[in-house]
């Protein structure tokens, strides 16, 4: 990855930094490892926050790692820095993720249910019912309903793991899908809407098209786009809100 060609430079720079404490050396190290931050930040980019912001947040983690790194440990800096950067990104989402204050118990249950729903959808080959979710998660149906409601308080910034896996590669999935070009053509019928749809990110255009013009279910869309069904639901609600607001005047997505 990014560190291979800089491994020796990195070591030399760290030795220098420890010796001199020169802020320029620290900056140079940060610059060299920015691609690592960008790489890690991209893994979170499907959660509704601008990539630039995520890179900023990740950079804080990088600087912390630079300040704490000990050359004598004998591990590569990138190995050492990765959990610190990821930790910083996760903390950011944890702090910012909930639009309305939701009790921690419900936050945790809601996040857990995302995984349960993804698993059940896979096993059953269809979307699960509330009682099936309750049985699988070993909680009451009332708890499931409460958590789903609170999930709506969860803003577009979402911690939910795409399709229950940690290794997402959403851009590749979207490209494979190859269908998003048609979204605009099909929406031409609703001429007043087309400029609004064009303002949506490609992924949102795809979701809109698949749900309302291909009649695909939320679970299927989740599978195709590589995000959770609950996230699809939240995005659809947000997309419709945006399109409606556009009918009454100008709006930004």
């Amino acid at each position, binding site marked *: 990855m990014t560190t291979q060609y800089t491994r020796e430079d990195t070591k030399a720079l760290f030795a220098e930094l420890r010796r001199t404490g020169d802020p320029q050396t620290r900056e140079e190290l940060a610059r060299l490892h920015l691609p690592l931050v960008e790489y890690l930040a991209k893994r979170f980019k499907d959660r509704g926050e601008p990539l630039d912001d995520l890179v900023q947040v990740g950079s804080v983690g990088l600087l912390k790692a630079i300040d704490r790194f000990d050359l004598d440990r004998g591990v590569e800096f990138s190995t050492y820095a990765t959990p610190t950067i990821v930790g910083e990104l996760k903390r950011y989402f944890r702090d910012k993720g909930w639009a309305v204050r939701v009790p921690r118990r419900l936050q945790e249950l809601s996040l857990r249910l995302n995984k349960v729903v993804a698993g059940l959808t896979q096993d059953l080959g269809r*979307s699960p019912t509330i009682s099936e979710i309750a049985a699988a998660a070993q909680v009451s149906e009332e708890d499931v309903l409460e958590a*789903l409601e609170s999930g709506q308080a969860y803003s577009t910034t979402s911690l939910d793991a795409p399709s229950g896996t940690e290794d997402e590669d959403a851009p590749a999935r979207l490209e494979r899908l190859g269908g998003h070009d048609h979204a605009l053509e099909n929406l031409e019928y609703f001429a007043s809407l087309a400029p609004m749809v064009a303002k949506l990110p490609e992924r949102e255009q795809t979701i809109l098209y698949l749900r309302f013009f291909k009649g695909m279910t939320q679970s299927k869309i989740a599978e195709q786009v590589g995000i959770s069904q609950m996230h699809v639901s939240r995005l659809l609600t947000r997309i419709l809100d945006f399109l409606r607001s556009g009918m009454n005047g100008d709006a930004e997505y």
Partner: protein
Amino acid sequence: MGAVTVRVPAVAAYLGLLRTAVGGFAARDRLTLDQIEDLRMAVEEAALALLRHSRDDHIALQVRSTDRGVEARLDTGAPDGAVVIDETSFSHAILRALADELRVEDEGGRTAVVLAKHRMADGGARRGRP
């Protein structure tokens, strides 16, 4: 199972309550998560359409179980002949995609949008129409 009726002020800020009510009802009727989400979204869309023509101070929602699934009926006072949901509109396209049944009833100064979501025989999700 029975029915639930909710009346909310004819103000956009209250329409979220209709979503919540229909979602809670549908969940107890063994609809799948996909179907519940569809119905919630459809109710909101229909309520917004009614809101634009309403001359009442409230919108009423009745949700009930039927042999086939869950039916949501939203109604409000509206001028006779008001076209609440134009069949060429995006709103109509959304509602058709989300609901298994859709009809608009216009009678005696009241307009109602009736939406239904069908249960699958095995409790499974109904596949969307192409």
